[in-house]
Every structure is written in C-alpha cells, then in structure tokens.
C-alpha cells in the first residue's frame, strides 16, 4: 500500500508523450560563465564611461547623483550587451541574423537563452536567492526588535534595513510566481512552443540582476531610509542611495511590463487548437489577468520615481516641502502599489486553485465566477488606491467613495474562497506537500482578508494605519498569499521542471513548519499594533516587549525552516527519484509531456477538446496529440538547427532566430 502511494503513477498512457531524452548522457558545460563575465566587464566599462562622460560635461565626483544616473544607464547597457544582447539584438542592426544561447548543458542558465523554460528557472532561482537575502534582513530586524532599546543596529540603520527588506521582498512577491511559473508553465498550458516574443522575454530577465545589484549596492551611497514606499519629501532629501533605489525600481518596472506584454500576447494569440477561453487552465487565467494589470499600472511607480529623481538632481520642485504637494506622490505611488498587491496575489490564487483541483480530483468549482472575479479585481483594484491615505490629510469627501470601492473588492476576493471551498468539498484529497501548503495558504489568507476589513473601515484604520497591525496584515496577505503560493508552486511543478521528485516527508515537514512558525511570528504583532506600537521603528516602549520577544523568537524558527526548503530543492533536483511525466495524475497540458519537457515542449501538436479539470466526468479528455501529417515535410529538430550555426567561435552555443 505504501509502495503504491509513493510511487509516482504513470499518466493515462494514450495521451502522454514520454520522450527518451532522459537516457542520454548529460552534456558537459563549456565555459558556462563567459556570458555573465562579459556582461560584468562591459558593465564596468559602461559605468566608467558614464562617469567619465558626466564628469567631463559638468564636473563633480563619481558619487554625485547625476553622475550616478548616467553611469547606471551606461552600465546597464553594457551589461545587457555583454550577456548576449550583442548577438541577440545587435547583430540584427548590422544586417546579420541574430543569435541566442542554446548551450545544451546547464551552462544555458547563465546565457541569453530564449527558451521560456530556461528563463522561468532563471527567474525562480534568482528570486528565491533575493527572498533569502531579504529574509536575512528580516532576521536582523527581528533580533534588533527582540528587546526594547537600541541593540545590534542603530535607529537610522534600522530604517535602512526595513527599506531594503521591504523593497527586495516586494520585488520577489511581484515577480516570483509570474516570472518563474508564468514563464515556465503558461506557454505549455496554452500549447505553445515558446512565448510570443522570446528575445524580449530573455531581455526582461537579464534586466533583473541589475535591479538586485542596484538595490544591494545602495549602501555604498548611504543607502535609502524612506521605506519601500519612498514617500516624498523624505525621498527627496535623504542620502544618495535613494537614487540607486529609483533607478533599480524603474528598471524593475521595465521587467514587469516586458514580462506582462509577453504573457498577454502569448495567451491571446498562441493558444493550441481548441483551447478556447473557457478551457484555459485557471493558472493561465491568473497570469493573464495579472499581466493586464501590471501592464497598465507599473509605469505610475516609475513615473513617481522619475519626479522624485528630478527633484533631487535637476532642482524641480514637484514634491518640495514648501509647496505642499507631497500628497501627489502618495496618489501616484498607490495608483501602482495598491494594484501591485493584486499583482502579487492573483498569480497565487491561480497556483492554489490549480493544484487544489489536482489534489482534490474535482473540477474547479465555479470556474466562470473565478475568471469573472480575476477580471473584476483587475478593474476594481485601480480605483481603490486612496484607502492607503485615510490619514494622509486628503480631502474628507474622498473618504466615502474609496471606502465603498474598497469594500466592493472584497466581493470578488470572496469568490476565490468560495471556489477553494467548493473544490475541496467532498473531494478525494491527497495531502502531498503542495496541498498542505495550500491549506497553510488558505488559513493565512483568511486572516489577511479578515484583518483587511479593519483597515478598509475608516474609523478603525485611523487608529491602525502605520502600526504593527498593518505590518502583520500585509505579511499575512503577501507572505501568506503570494510567497506561500510561490513555495507551493515550487513543490507542485518541481517534478515537471526537474524530472525528479522532491522528498515528500521533508516537504510536508517544511509546509507545516513554515505555516506554524509564520503564524507564531505575526499573530502577536496584531496585538502590538492595536496597542500602540507603530511601524518602521528600531526601538519601542517597554510595554510591547513581550509580544516582540515572542515574535522574534518565532521569526528565527521561521527563518530556519527555509534551510529545509533549500536543501530539499537542491538535493532532490540532483538526487531525487525520477518522477515520470505525470506524478500527480493531473490533466493540463504540461503534465501530458515528458518531465522535463523537450526543447520545444511538444513533439506532436496538442489539440484541446475539453475542459481542463473534468475530474470524475466519464470519458472526459482535456487534450490529445495529433499524429503528424505524413504528407507534411518533417520539422527540423533541435540538433539540426544548432548544427547550422557554426560560423564564429563566439557562436559555439548560439542558435539563430529569425
């Protein structure tokens, strides 16, 4: 019995394509880091050029803000050119065919690959690393807050660490699920061979490392202490690290927008035959809705930061204290950043609903209502921003409408809960790690949702705003809603991506551990906030010592759980048992092809004939694979393509794209 339970089941034979790539020896990586190295070298050259140019024109020192901006832009261009932009884009400008990285070894993860699966993994690994760095910052803060008084870091450094932690984590939450799994899974779920604009996709990813470097490099210029929100006028008058924050986040906006365009166009134009909108897997719907939102609002944050930057370096006075327009900053900022919380959690909704159907073996409950809810949230989320400004001093008559709209958004969000409950209802629940994580997610998001009501109501928000109640609330929604989904997705698609199975016992242990520790960390903070502890402080009155000591202790236990996660992922990716194409016996397209999928995803053309989650429906089929038409000319395989490209030494692992 136990044997049966643990051995991954083969999928319903007739639909599975199991290519035998697994038996081939692994190709060896040849000079895998040369692209990244070239990028770094060109970035340094770019930086030096920018500095020289700016100083030649206007004098000053390399740490002057205007010089930093010019140098950043030049370094960014150098980096992009170096990692593969020259081949992927530059060659085209001189009339040659562009080339991209097709290194068959693991070296491809360090090059300008246009394979959406490679890019998905690049995003995933990069962002998990950022998550861990942000987590370290959190540990430092919790240690400082373990007792009142100034301990390991002084008050200003604490503000800088809060700001760094916040912005790194926001980046992870915005780009995590969408970057990693939106890229990896969406094209396969729609039956496409790749994204609509593969080179743009690669470009978007390679813009991400500069974001991390820019943010983490800010301490060299005094760091930024205005929080992740960077409210003006503080962000106009603080230290120069703020400039790097601004540049990095504008770059990050570009990552978001380029990624969003790709997902939107891919889902609209590249769906397989028969894959109507009503048959689209819910995760793809989530990624699509989120992308619409990200595409629409991201420029507002960038715009606000451009204004801040101009105030700092060219002497404009958009937000100067004297003119009293700093509320303008908040309006523009929240016009992005409220929708941003939905950019963080809608992909999470998608992941959780997707895997719940699989592990409950039931159709997704109220599929159409969920899709309507996604789109409703997208629409409503752009008209509720000022609920973050109930105490800002904006005109009183604005309070009412924003409260109504905010409460209205709880209706579509409620549908997600209904669908989750309805799908679980009397299901055949198979408690593997992803489902355990989904239960943790449901519990956390429930608390996040309920506490959100207190912040949507003006009377209570006036007291709670900017306290630890808010800190606890948004950790419940962002960590509980987005990061838990990211972790659940990592387990759910792990066998697909690596072809191997993670360790189930350790996975379940991690899921329970992280859920319990997370709740122990943040529950006491609701109390602290209600009782008068404000946020973004490195010191606090003795009255809150008990709750904080408890939270700090739990936070360390929470932090430790990630060691287990990382170990499980790394070890299993290399040593885990083979997973087979469909260990969960799921139905969407990605589970009908081999694990890991072949280079262009589908050996035969997929044809969709039914709904994706018709579990329990007699004779239902989501998709089958069409045998190739014998009259048609054979499609070239990957080997053929790379054999054509042998012109230059540079191109040993490059593929031409048209």
């Amino acid at each position, binding site marked *: 019995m136990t044997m049966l339970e643990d051995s991954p089941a083969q999928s319903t034979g007739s639909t599975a394509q199991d290519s035998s790539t697994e038996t081939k020896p692994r190709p060896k990586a040849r000079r895998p880091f040369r692209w990244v190295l070239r990028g770094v070298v060109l970035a340094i050259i770019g930086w030096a050029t920018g500095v020289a140019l700016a100083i030649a024109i206007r004098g000053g020192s390399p740490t002057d803000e205007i010089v930093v901006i010019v140098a950043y832009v030049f370094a960014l261009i150098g980096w992009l050119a170096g990692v593969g932009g020259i081949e992927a884009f530059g060659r085209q400008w001189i009339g040659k065919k562009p080339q991209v990285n097709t290194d068959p070894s693991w070296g491809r993860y360090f090059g300008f690959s246009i394979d959406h699966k490679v890019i998905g993994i690049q995003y995933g690994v990069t962002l998990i690393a950022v998550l861990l760095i942000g987590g370290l910052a959190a540990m430092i803060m919790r240690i400082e807050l373990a007792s009142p008084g100034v301990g390991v870091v002084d008050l200003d450094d604490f503000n800088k660490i809060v700001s760094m932690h916040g912005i790194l984590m926001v980046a992870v939450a915005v780009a995590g699920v969408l970057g990693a799994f939106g890229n990896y899974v969406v094209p396969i779920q729609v039956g496409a061979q790749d994204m609509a604009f593969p080179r743009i996709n690669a470009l978007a990813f390679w813009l991400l490392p500069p974001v991390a470097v820019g943010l983490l490099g800010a301490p060299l210029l005094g760091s930024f202490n205005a929080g992740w929100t960077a409210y003006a006028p503080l962000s106009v008058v603080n230290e120069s690290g703020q400039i790097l924050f601004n540049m990095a986040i504008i770059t990050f906006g570009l990552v978001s927008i380029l990624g969003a365009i790709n997902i939107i166009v891919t889902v609209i134009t590249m769906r397989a035959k028969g894959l109507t909108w009503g048959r689209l897997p819910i995760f793809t719907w989530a990624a699509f809705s989120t992308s619409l939102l990200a595409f629409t609002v991201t420029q507002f944050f960038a715009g606000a930061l451009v204004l801040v930057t101009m105030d700092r370096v060219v002497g404009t006075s958009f937000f100067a204290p004297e003119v009293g327009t700093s509320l303008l900053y908040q309006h523009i900022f929240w016009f992005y950043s409220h929708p941003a919380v939905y950019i963080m959690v809608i992909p999470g909704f998608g992941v959780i609903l997707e895997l719940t159907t699989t592990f409950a073996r039931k159709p997704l409950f109220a599929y159409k209502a969920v899709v309507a809810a996604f789109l409703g949230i997208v629409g409503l989320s752009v008209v509720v921003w000022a609920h973050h400004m109930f105490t800002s001093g904006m005109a009183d008559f604005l309070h009412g409408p924003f409260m109504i709209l905010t409460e209205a958004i709880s209706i579509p969000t409620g549908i997600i809960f209904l669908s989750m409950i309805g799908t679980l209802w009397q299901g*055949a629940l198979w408690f593997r790690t992803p489902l355990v994580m989904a239960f943790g997610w449901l519990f956390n998001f429930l608390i996040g949702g309920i506490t959100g009501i207190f912040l949507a109501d003006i009377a209570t928000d006036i007291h709670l*705003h900017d306290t630890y109640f808010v800190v606890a609330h948004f950790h419940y929604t962002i960590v509980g809603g987005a990061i838990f989904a990211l972790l659940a997705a990592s387990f759910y698609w792990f066998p697909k991506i690596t072809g191997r199975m993670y360790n189930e016992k350790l996975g379940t242990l991690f899921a329970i551990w992280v859920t319990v520790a997370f709740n122990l960390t943040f529950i006491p903070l609701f109390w602290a906030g209600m009782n008068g502890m404000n946020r973004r402080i490195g010191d606090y009155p003795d009255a809150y010592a008990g709750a904080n000591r408890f939270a700090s202790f739990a936070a360390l236990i929470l932090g430790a759980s990630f060691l287990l996660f990382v170990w499980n992922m790394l070890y299993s990716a290399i040593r885990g048992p083979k997973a087979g194409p469909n260990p969960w016996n799921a139905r969407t397209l990605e589970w009908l092809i081999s694990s890991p999928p072949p280079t262009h995803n589908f050996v035969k053309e997929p044809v969709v004939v039914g709904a994706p989650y018709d579990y329990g429906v007699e004779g239902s089929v989501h998709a089958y694979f069409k045998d190739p038409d014998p009259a048609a000319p054979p499609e070239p395989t990957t080997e053929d393509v790379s054999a054509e490209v042998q012109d230059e030494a540079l191109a040993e692992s490059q593929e031409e794209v048209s």
Partner: protein
Amino acid sequence: MRRSWVPVAVLWLGYTVLMMWAVAQFNWLPEQWAIEAEVVDEAMVLLQYLGAPVMALVLAVMTWALIAWRSNGANRPDGPPQRDNRTVLTTWLIVTSALAIFVVINPGFVGLAEIRGEPSADYVIEVEAAQFFWKVTYPNGTESFDELVVPSERRVRYDVTSVDVNHSFWIPAFRIKIDAVAGLTTQAFATAEHEGGIDDDINLRIQCAELCGAGHASMAMPVRVVSDQEFNEYIETLGEGE
C-alpha cells in the same frame, strides 16, 4: 454520497460561538481616554463579531476536509464532478455583498461621521512637526516642546502641520491620527474623557506614525489630560514663564 453539510454546519456553529465568546470575553484593545476611542473600539468589536462567522465557515470546511475527505495515492478515484452550484454561488454573492454594504454603512459611514463629522471645537491646539520633535501651540499663543496638556471633557481640534518631511500625529490612547504635511494644515478632533498621563498609560503620548528619518522611532511626546480649569491655569503659567 457522504453527507458533509451537517458536520460542517455543526463545526461552523461551534467555531462561531467560540470566536464570538472570545471577542466578548477578552479585550485586546488598549484603555480608552477619549470619546473617539470609544467609537473606534466599538467599530473594532463590531467588525470582530462580523468577521467571526466568515472565518468560522472557512475553518469549518478546512477542519472537515482534514478529517473526512482524505484519500491516498495518485490513482484514487475522482471526487464528485460538481462544477458549479447556482444556489450556492448566488447565496454567497448575496451574503458577501450584504456584509460589504453593511460594514460600509456601519461602522463605515457612521463611524466616519462620529469622528470627523462635527467641525466645531472648544479649543484649537496647533501642532507642528519637525525632524524629530513636536511643538504644540495653545489657544493663548504659548508653546511647548516637551508635553501636550489637554483639557478633559472638551472637544479639541488639532491643527497639524509639518515644517519638513511628512510626519503623522497619533495619540494611541485617543485613537486619532492625522498626517503632518508641510504646506498643508490637517485636522484631527478628540474629546478626552478622564485625567491621566503617560505614567498611567504608555498610549497617552503623541507618537510620530509616518517614517520621517533617523529619529522617527523616538519622535514621541507625553500627553497629560487635566481638568478644564487646570488646563487654563497651565497655559497661563506657561505664558508667564517666557
């Protein structure tokens, strides 16, 4: 088919009663020192009562799922193929909409009207924030940098502004908060009820609640509530000291 409605309903009732009991039994909120605090706390408690059944419902399903709907193995039989249920969906939409409308009205608009609706005040105290201290100016023009003294049972309007970056004027014991923004004068109202000071309750303090730089954490000032008569005497003597 197993009947799940009954046990889930029982669990739901159980959790609801338990949570409502907890809300009634324990007071998580700090002491109230002003009428506004009563309004806010009332809203807090009402929302807790309203949230309890919602939370209980999801918890009930989760609990029963863990108890009764487990099955093992990838090859287990499928669950029932229910894709939709019009009645459930409609009921859900109606109930959630009704709840949303309810909370918009009460405590939403009702609370808003009670806290910010009435513009009249017995005294006006000006509050000026700067990196990183507070300055209060009393009706007779006297100023203080180290203590805010307010009369009890009098409605006071605070005219708040900043000379540099944004700050936020928050007195946790009164549950009022309004940002201090340079170039703007924002207003908050509070009617203190009984006399006391920071030694009685740590929440009788002005606490800056908007990140304003290095000294943000320590940007606090004690608040002392005295009788109306003492208040007037206090501001008189404050003036003489100058």
